[in-house]
């Protein structure tokens, strides 16, 4: 099968949906001739025209609200925010409007919109262009939250997000845009709420999201060289969360490490850890659950500092080993 990049996979999903469904349109800043801040929509203006690839002023509040209103009245808008940090300006429309409309109105109406946005650090863009704020939106009932870690997932999940009748926040990780994998050419859908076991293992489970997934896979293959078999689970969507797959994995391995790039404090990892603590998998644990997350700082500019804010492959290896050798570790540290 052909390989394409994550970025191309996102574009392909958008284009196929737009060909398929007249109600789907895009709006966002510089998505026209410029092709979007990261080039996702390059070429789409030429194919679909300016009526459906709507280049907007720099007005996140207006464009997010316009997406809500259009969605409520029969369109399926896909909004691009240039950097996920700017969600702060779109937040009222997302949290107080989009997320609540159907419930508040007693089950009337729906808001089938997708807000796509690149997130994460690793590009030297510093404090206001590098955050991972997905836990904020995951906290809000009414919103769905997607975080694909590879192009083939991104393509299928984006179709599902656009077809979904609810507001979906779709995070694309900047440092994954250039990664490639095998992506089927035809349109396909990956259901929201279905985790993927990216690697099977028996000794420990790493639940990783977005850019942490390739790192977890690297950690797992290094650990395998030392005879430790690590299972890597990618939830792919935080809301809805596939608790079952995570619970089953931990029941099998008896050890859980959760890794995300977002700041550890208040991060979604806490939700996953407590899901296990509350589940039947608790009885199967051979070591305390561990979490790796971003340092509790704004993302710094200097590349060494920036790198140090996010969990590394080595951090993951150390954590897994600590869990695997928990009894000896406890004797030495206890």
């Amino acid at each position: 099968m052909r390989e394409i990049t994550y970025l191309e996979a996102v574009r392909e999903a958008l284009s196929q949906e737009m060909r398929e469904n007249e109600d789907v349109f895009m709006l966002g800043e510089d998505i026209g001739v410029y092709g979007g801040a990261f080039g996702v929509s390059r070429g789409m203006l030429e194919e679909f025209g300016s009526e459906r690839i709507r280049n907007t002023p720099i007005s996140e509040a207006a464009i997010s609200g316009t997406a809500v209103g259009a969605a409520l009245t029969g369109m399926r808008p896909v909004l691009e925010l240039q950097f996920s940090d700017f969600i702060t300006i779109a937040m009222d429309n997302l949290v107080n409007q989009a997320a609540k409309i159907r419930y508040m109105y007693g089950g009337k109406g729906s808001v089938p919109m997708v807000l796509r946005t690149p997130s994460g650090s690793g590009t030297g863009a510093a404090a206001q262009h590098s955050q991972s704020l997905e836990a904020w939106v995951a906290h809000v009932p009414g919103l769905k939250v997607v975080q694909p870690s590879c192009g083939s997932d991104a393509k299928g999940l984006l179709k599902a997000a656009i077809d979904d009748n609810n507001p979906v926040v779709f995070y694309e990780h900047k440092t994954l845009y250039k990664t490639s994998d095998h992506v089927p050419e035809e349109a396909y859908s990956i259901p929201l709420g279905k985790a993927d076991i990216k690697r099977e293992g028996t000794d420990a489970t790493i639940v990783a999201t977005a850019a942490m997934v390739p790192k977890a896979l690297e950690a797992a293959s290094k650990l395998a060289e030392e005879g430790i078999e690590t299972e890597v689970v990618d939830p792919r969507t935080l809301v809805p969360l596939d608790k079952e797959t995570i619970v089953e994995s931990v029941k099998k391995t008896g050890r859980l490490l959760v890794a995300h790039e977002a700041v550890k404090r208040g991060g979604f990892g806490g939700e996953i850890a407590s899901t296990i603590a509350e589940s039947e998998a608790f009885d199967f644990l051979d070591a305390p659950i561990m979490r790796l997350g971003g340092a509790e700082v704004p993302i710094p500019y200097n590349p060494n500092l920036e790198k140090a804010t996010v969990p590394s492959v080595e951090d993951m290896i150390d954590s897994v080993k600590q869990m695997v050798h928990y009894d000896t570790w406890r004797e030495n540290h206890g």
Partner: protein
Amino acid sequence: MIQIPEHLSKERLLDLYEQMWLIRYFDEKVDEFFAKGMIHGTTHLAVGQEASAVGSCAVLKEEDKITSTHRGHGHCIAKGADINKMMAELFGRETGYCKGKGGSMHIADLDKGNLGANGIVGGGFAIANGAGLTSRMKDLGYVVLCFFGDGASNEGSFHEALNLASIWDLPVVFICENNQYGMSGPVKDMINIEHIASRSGSYGIPGKVVDGNDVFDVMNAVGEAVEHAREGNGPSLVECKTYRWKGHSKSDAKKYRTREEEKEWRDKDPIKRMKEAMLEKEIVTEEEVEEIKQQAKRKIEESVEFSKESPEPDLSTLLTDVYAD
């Protein structure tokens, strides 16, 4: 030919002329280093827009303040920043303005009244108001210049802040550097009025359009607005029509504009126009202006040396300065 205000001494003129070259050389250097991969992250260059920064800050007193934008190197230099510390910040070094933590989009020099560049478009409007409010409440007498782009004027924060500044008579001058584009969005497609300054009417405050590539035109208009604010009469809106010569950030394919348009604006080079006006009036000689230009170039070269010799921040600094003591 642009008009030199009578009250400016030769020394002052040459000082302003040097600032213009410092900004141009600084940003050209940064452009070069980005192309070579010696500086990472992102940056927004103000080459071609030097006059709006220099002309605006030229009328300020030391204690006056500014809020800047993502395209902020010029504002920073015009407000009297230490070039070495600026360049070192772009190199991510410990000696930089932000100890290597901020980079191009976050240089701030609070001691010099520069409340900071801003990575959030439209992020400066209300902060400028707040600084103006402090000036009022503590009776400090300073004025705040709030720089922003044409694109930023479409953020909701523009409307909210200008209205508030107006009803509270805050000592803020909102300076729109209309360089004709946002990232790529042309002003003519994004705004249905010819002059952004016309929006001042919605707030009942003075609004003025100036030739942003004429440093003296900028000085006159901003000077008036600053006096108006200092005397307690509230905010104004000044729009400087200008053009950025480079791509939006680092380089871009510039598919959203024509090479002819670029040339037209390059012919209105603000530095060249200032030089020609000074030569025409025989205030300075060719040799003098050339010497100033070379001096600016040397300062930039020195800042590069300084930056290269500066240490990287220690990893232990990662966790410092999150909270104030």
